[in-house]
């Protein structure tokens, strides 16, 4: 097998992996986009919980919240003078959602479909 053919194959595999990975990314990105305007609680990996209205989200699941309220003991004093914030996706542990806003069946079906198409 010559180099060019290898490169072509490797390149294709890499590209298709990224495409599929993005597809799964797309699922939650779209899911969060549907929740824009709702009140959510974002819990970070340092146990800080931020309650606010979901303003926007991006492909990396960075979250922008407006009108925030820090729901734990305000032992994070730097948050006191902040009303709107942008949270980097990589530091989020949980995003707590209002139960009545989420159609879990739909989400499950969509996730199942994604996983199925990824396996193929």
């Amino acid at each position, binding site marked *: 097998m010559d180099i060019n053919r290898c490169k072509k194959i490797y390149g294709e595999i890499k590209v298709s992996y990224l495409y599929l990975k993005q597809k799964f990314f797309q699922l939650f990105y779209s899911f969060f986009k549907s929740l824009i305007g709702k009140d959510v609680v974002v819990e*970070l*990996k*340092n146990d800080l919980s*931020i309650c606010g209205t979901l303003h*926007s989200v*991006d*492909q*990396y699941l*960075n979250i*922008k919240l407006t009108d*925030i309220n820090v729901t734990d003991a305000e032992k994070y*004093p*730097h*948050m*006191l*003078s*902040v*009303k*709107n*914030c*942008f*949270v*980097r996706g*990589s*530091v989020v542990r949980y995003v707590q959602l209002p139960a009545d806003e989420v159609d879990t069946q739909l989400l499950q079906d969509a996730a199942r479909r994604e996983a199925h198409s990824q396996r193929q």
Partner: protein
Amino acid sequence: MDIPGVAQLFDEIDKKLVVYLRDGRTLIGILRTIDQFANLVLHRTIERIHVGNKYGDIERGVIIIRGENVVLLGEWDEERARVSGLHQISVEDILDAQREEQQQQQHQQLLRAKFMKERGLTLTPEIGPDDMY
């Protein structure tokens, strides 16, 4: 991050922001530039050290922050800052207070590790030296 069509951080340009970093530092400055990795350039930056309800400021000037080190950034709200109940002290005092606080925390860690060791367990902190936030 910042891809065409997602104006998330573009809205924050030229605004005074509070940036919280992964090492626990708080920087307050005016956001001047961003890129697709959410690297930031802050202008007229001050590093604010919080201990209890006191804080101290250190001038830092222009700072470039690598995006991966940011935990969150928030818009500085003058109204909320005024009613926050924090008061400012001098840099030397705040550094002393910070040192004391760190020593106390280290002491706690030591006690916790000892406690676990006596029971045959090891304490592995969830958060490493990079993540002191």
